[in-house]
């Protein structure tokens, strides 16, 4: 499949899945109720579709797209199929920011936890950016990212340790497992500006990703302003991840897997892969959230749990098959 065809396929696939995700849910609606939802959006069925499910699906799609794009950009920049915001510690930074805010009792302040998550992710992103300017070897950067991630995780555990009450602990834990339950349109609107800025930075860095295929030195002599492109790529990925963590908590696997799902279709082009990766990420999240909602479990499954539970084995299978195309 060529890149434009793959992108179109994913785009329409996402639209169909999003429509299904809005239509289907825990509360079964009759045909008449669906008609009522369309004719009178303010009616109870309309409320269920447009105020409960639709924003949730929108946030899931936005978060998935942000994580997928961020993963694709980081894999291209670091020339490494293992790179993703989780591995580089950006997600852990966001998680730590949110955990701190919740522990400090800021959960009641509107937007405080989200802002703290964004700030945490950006702080971790700044560390990665600083390291990327200093160390050019992708492996070094990934090791530093792993260290940042572990340190962020340790500090989050410390927050648990000193957490004033079990309620706070439960709140932090629930947040770290990731969810888009009860999100409304304001959550989607809130996530959009940082994601748009992150997207712009990633698009700016795009030509550098293709040139990085040949390594640091060839890229440096290609005429592209690699120092600026690198900074833009890291900052863009951090903004996208930060906004995603702020909107939904920490969700693993999507940033890693989405690029791999579309890599073969994009003929391994690390620049052409950006749009399909974003769309694949959105599809994964919408499907995962739909599963979380409709699986007949006593307590609704957390989104991060679903992505990991279903995604990890699928990803292992893809990795098995695709290992050949990564690197000889």
């Amino acid at each position: 499949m060529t890149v434009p065809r793959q992108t179109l396929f994913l785009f329409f696939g996402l639209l169909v899945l999003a429509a299904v995700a809005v239509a289907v849910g825990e509360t079964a609606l009759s045909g008449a109720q669906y008609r009522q939802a369309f004719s009178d959006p303010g009616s109870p069925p309309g409320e269920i579709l447009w105020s409960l499910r639709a924003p949730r699906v929108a946030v899931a799609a936005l978060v998935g797209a942000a994580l997928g794009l961020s993963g694709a950009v980081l894999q291209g920049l670091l020339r490494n199929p293992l790179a993703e915001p989780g591995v580089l510690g950006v997600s852990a930074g966001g998680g730590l920011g949110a955990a701190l805010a919740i522990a400090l009792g800021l959960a009641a302040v509107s937007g405080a936890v989200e802002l703290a998550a964004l700030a945490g992710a950006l702080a971790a992103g700044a560390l990665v950016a600083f390291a990327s300017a200093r160390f050019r070897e992708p492996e070094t950067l990934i090791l530093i990212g792993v260290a940042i991630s572990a340190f962020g995780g340790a500090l989050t555990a410390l927050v648990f340790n000193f957490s004033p009450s079990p309620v706070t602990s439960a709140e932090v834990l629930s947040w770290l497992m990731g969810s888009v339950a009860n999100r409304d349109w304001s959550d989607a609107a809130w996530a959009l500006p940082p994601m748009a800025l992150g997207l712009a930075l990633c698009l700016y860095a795009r030509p550098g990703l293709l040139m990085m295929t040949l390594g640091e030195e060839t890229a440096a002599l290609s005429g592209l302003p690699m120092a600026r492109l690198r900074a833009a790529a890291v900052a863009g990925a951090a903004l996208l991840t930060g906004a995603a963590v702020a909107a939904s908590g920490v969700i693993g696997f999507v940033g890693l897997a989405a690029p791999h799902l579309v890599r073969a279709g994009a003929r391994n082009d690390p620049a052409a892969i950006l749009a399909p990766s974003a769309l694949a990420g959105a599809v994964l999240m919408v499907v995962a959230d739909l599963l979380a909602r409709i699986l007949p479990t006593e307590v609704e499954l957390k989104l991060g749990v679903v992505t990991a539970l279903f995604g990890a084995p699928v990803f292992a299978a893809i990795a098995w098959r695709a290992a050949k195309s990564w690197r000889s």
Partner: protein
Amino acid sequence: MSSLAQLSEASVSLADRPVLQAASLSVSAGEMVGVIGANGAGKTTLLRALLGLAPLTGGTARLQGREVAHLSDAERASLVAYMPQERRVAWSLPAWRIAALGATDRPAGAARDAALAGLARVGLANLAERGVLDMSGGERARVLLARLLITHAPLMVADEPTAGLDPDAQFLALERLREKATGGRAVLVTLHDLTLAARTCDRLIVLANGRVLADAAPSLALSSANLARAFQLDGALIDTPAGPVVAARRLV
């Protein structure tokens, strides 16, 4: 001949160890210059110093008379193209896409045409669509050479362009670079095969322990004294009907 690239008394240290010491060289349009020396003699560092990739601790590196450190990324790319020794390609793009990265200054269609022509020049016309990680190391090296060959840069620098190639492909690679020099470009290569170096280069720079030991025509640069000092070889450059040959054995 105008000097396209110049190192003057250039020194480079890596981890406080001097790897290039007061090295000077000049490469002009129309000539092919080879850099030879034992492992660790400083060949790659010499190239990197000239390209502004290795910071100098002394001396200057100039491209077309301008200090390389003061050139913008775009200016430097318009003056020089580089094929590093590192052959790792991160993703298995089709060969023609990799080769086309040497023509990013041209529209997509022209870049593709140039890439296909470049692959044909290195004998890979029938592998243009193959993923580079599904190729042998030697084939991949030729794809990277094609990328270098299709650039418009007046100076072409290649670090061991023949490494990993079969004998025929080694001749082919150096012939293609030789053609570029004949066509008016300046070509600077590092080589390990002294016979190939003698046959294809106008001039050889002999490096030993980070210092330029000789900078002369192959017949002079490959003197028995230089072979002994730079390579610990007991040898000589011999003329044969097929061209000059370096015959040597280890000094014990």
